[in-house]
């Protein structure tokens, strides 16, 4: 078929564009996710920069409150849904099939669909800036502020519908990765022989597919209230708007574990490699990850301690929240145990991984302080919470993700990122980050409220706010260093070879960058750290693990040619995403509305009909295209 022919022999620039538009290769999709997410990360950072410019001095009116509200709302939404989650997805895509010895994910076209729908949602969300204003009610969008009475414009609708699209993308990806990890492991790779990154991805995927339906329902309820005058959050009809907060945080708390567990998985891969030691306490780390995933469902109302749930509810959620610190602590001790006695090599990836541990401990400690509900009564809605959030999400997730970038960039591109620039990037990040967010602890406890565009000059907060803004500029410098390193190394960096780090897991057993089919022959796995065992057979005792405990003698599989079937590229996933995007815009504009009056907007209705029809027809096209691909 023409698409496949072009894919294997792209000639013109447009051929190359077509290859990327129709790719179903997990490695390319991973790169698409990574690049797109990083651009959104820069966008979210710009939104933060503007806020910090406004807050640099007291009583400034450089950015008026109405704009400031949109900045912090979009900064949070962008960083969480358009930066951290898709950056994690980039690693899931690039690495998971390689680490389990597979040729691709279980459903390659569904994988592509997830990426295009994410892109559609991200673009849709940000068009709100130009189409009447963005969300201004905080990234968690509490009711009744998000109702028509207080928010007649379309910013909230853009947010709600975009998030529904993003949820569809994430849920599809979650389903895909669960099936991939459960069902497509190489022979001999039992669950307890999987790398920890694979385990964390599995837990995160379960969290995604169970938590996103809850917020999808909340968003539908909000959207229907605003578009059609339903009463879900209508106080005058007798509704309790706290319902929004509950539904949001029932999703929202598992969501923060979705944000941190991938980075924890990355760190669990990087530490053993650069400490030249196996991961300490593998089973403890795995079970802690699973516990965190399960217990994450029991703590959500700690985001609502000041809402008036009553002492019984507050106490119960305090207890559950304190308890969830235990498995987190277990992981940290096991990472330290991995470093202990190791022969540590401070490559940039390792610096970021160790930085992750240190910063995440700080973030976790402030989190523990919030867990105690009377203390939280003081801390809620102050910069103390902002400090906690950023220590765990930036000091945690982002540092972990950078560790992953330095670690796996050579695998994806065949070149090493420059170490000198890398170390400069790390230290600028470390200094800038702490300068920006450490003072927020003090300001918060001193009472500086969050989400306010300015503060009085005589509160005693001026110095720290200035320091924080300086910190942001240092972070900006760090990002410029990174980008320079990224582009220069991509073009002319040192050749990496298959295994530049002398690492332990299967992705390093194949060339860098990997061929389309990943493995010439699917490996037979005999234990944990499967590649290490291949390199140093019987040199280090490897726990047999799992049900299949015998050691197999070295075997040669599929000698000669077992036929390798790679899936064909396809444009159907992209087309379905386009259809959903059109329908989404229609839903945003479906009615002319004001509280009490709702007139159908024919343009919006038309967009819904066209979009749904387009998506449905494309789905049929998708079904008709055979899943199995051409032989190599």
């Amino acid at each position: 078929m023409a698409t496949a022919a072009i894919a294997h022999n792209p000639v013109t620039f447009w051929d190359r564009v077509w290859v990327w538009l129709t790719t179903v290769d997990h490695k390319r999709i991973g790169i698409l996710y990574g690049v797109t997410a990083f651009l959104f990360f820069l966008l979210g950072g710009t939104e933060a920069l503007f806020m910090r410019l406004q807050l640099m001095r007291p009583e400034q009116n450089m950015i008026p409150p109405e704009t400031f509200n949109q900045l912090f709302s979009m900064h949070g939404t962008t960083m969480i849904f358009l930066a951290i989650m898709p950056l994690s997805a980039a690693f899931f895509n690039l690495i998971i099939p390689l680490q389990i010895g597979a040729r691709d994910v279980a459903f390659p076209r569904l994988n592509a669909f997830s990426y295009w729908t994410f892109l559609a949602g991200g673009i849709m969300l940000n068009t709100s800036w130009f189409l009447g204003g963005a969300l201004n009610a905080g990234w968690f969008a509490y009711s009744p502020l998000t109702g028509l009475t207080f928010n007649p414009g379309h910013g909230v609708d853009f947010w709600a519908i975009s998030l529904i699209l993003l949820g569809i993308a994430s849920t599809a990806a979650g389903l895909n990765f669960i099936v991939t990890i459960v069902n497509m492991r190489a022979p001999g790779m039992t669950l307890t022989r999987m790398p920890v990154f694979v385990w964390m991805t599995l837990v995160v995927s379960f969290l995604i597919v169970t938590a996103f339906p809850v917020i999808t329902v909340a968003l539908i309820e909000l959207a229907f209230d605003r578009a059609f005058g339903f009463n879900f959050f209508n106080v005058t009809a007798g509704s309790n708007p706290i319902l929004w907060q509950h539904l949001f945080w029932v999703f929202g708390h598992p969501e923060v574990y979705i944000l941190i567990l991938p980075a924890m998985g990355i760190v669990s891969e990087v530490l053993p490699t650069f400490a030249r030691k196996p991961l300490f306490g593998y089973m403890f780390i795995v079970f802690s990850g699973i516990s965190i995933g399960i217990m994450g469902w029991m703590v959500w109302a700690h985001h609502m301690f000041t809402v008036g749930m009553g002492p019984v509810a507050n106490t119960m959620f305090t207890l559950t929240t304190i308890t969830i610190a235990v498995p987190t602590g277990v992981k940290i001790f096991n990472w330290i145990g991995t470093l202990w006695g190791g022969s540590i090599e401070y490559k940039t990836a390792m610096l970021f991984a160790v930085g992750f541990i240190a910063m995440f401990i700080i973030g976790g400690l402030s989190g523990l302080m919030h867990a105690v509900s009377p203390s939280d009564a003081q801390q809620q809605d102050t910069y103390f919470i902002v400090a906690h959030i950023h220590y765990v999400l930036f000091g945690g997730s982002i540092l972990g993700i950078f560790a992953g970038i330095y670690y796996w960039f050579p695998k994806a591109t065949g070149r090493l990122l420059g170490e000198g620039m890398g170390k400069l990037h790390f230290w600028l990040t470390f200094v800038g980050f702490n300068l920006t967010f450490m003072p927020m602890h003090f300001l918060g406890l001193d009472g500086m409220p969050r989400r306010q565009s300015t503060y009085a000059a005589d509160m005693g907060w001026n110095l720290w706010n200035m320091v924080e803004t300086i910190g942001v500029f240092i972070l900006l410098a760090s990002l410029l260093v990174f980008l320079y390193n990224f582009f220069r190394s991509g073009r002319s960096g040192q050749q990496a070879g298959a295994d530049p780090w002398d690492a332990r897991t299967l992705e390093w057993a194949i060339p860098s960058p990997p061929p389309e089919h990943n493995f010439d022959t699917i490996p037979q796995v005999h234990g944990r750290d499967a590649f290490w065992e291949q390199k140093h057979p019987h040199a280090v005792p490897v726990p047999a693990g799992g049900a299949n405990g015998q050691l197999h003698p070295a075997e040669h599989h599929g000698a000669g040619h077992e036929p390798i079937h790679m899936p064909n590229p396809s444009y159907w996933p992209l087309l379905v995403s386009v259809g959903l995007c059109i329908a989404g815009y229609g839903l945003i504009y479906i009615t002319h509305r004001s509280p009490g009056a709702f007139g159908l907007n024919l343009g919006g209705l038309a967009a819904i009909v066209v979009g749904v029809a387009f998506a449905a027809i494309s789905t049929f096209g998708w079904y008709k295209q055979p899943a199995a691909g051409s032989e190599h």
Partner: protein
Amino acid sequence: MAQAAHAGHAPEHPTSTGLDNRKLLMWIFLGSDCLFFGSLIATYLINYGKSLVGPYPHEILDIPVTSVSTFVLLLSSFMFVLSLAAHTKGDYRAFRVWVLCTVVLGCTFLGFQVFEFQQFVHEGLTPRTNLFGTTFFTLTGFHGAHVTIGVVWLLSLFFLSLRGKLGPDKNLSVDIAGLYWHFVDVVWIVIFTVIYLSGVVAGAKAAGG
């Protein structure tokens, strides 16, 4: 590693569990969809009894009519079970007959829903009227949307079979469609019990009936 084929479907390619990827996908999706309907049901239950104005559930829900539509949907599940059994045996004509029966019953159910919605609007209950209207129409509306998607899916199977494109190698596709259809039925069992039966009893009690 290739496992012994399990009851019903050998996966096309060897898998770690011996189970087919697509069947695994459908079951996880159904687990996920439980959370979707669970949230809608939670919203309904939390708002139950809080409407400031009528119509109230016990005044307007029609148990006899809804009982019939519940029977219809249950029967449709049975029809589909028969269609899958026919397809497995290789009797494709019987398969098409039973699938068509399923579709007809599914459409009948949807007809009942439409009728009920129209009745309610006529009697003064819209999604805008009160909390009951909002939560009721949204929950049953999304269930109806799921049924509609199921009907389209089953009709597609019917037409594929007519064109000879649904042979024995596609038995899994039929199985998976059935899982979705039965799930939709099972959700209705919950809705019928919680919203209709319990709702009317509790409402009547609260009203002193």
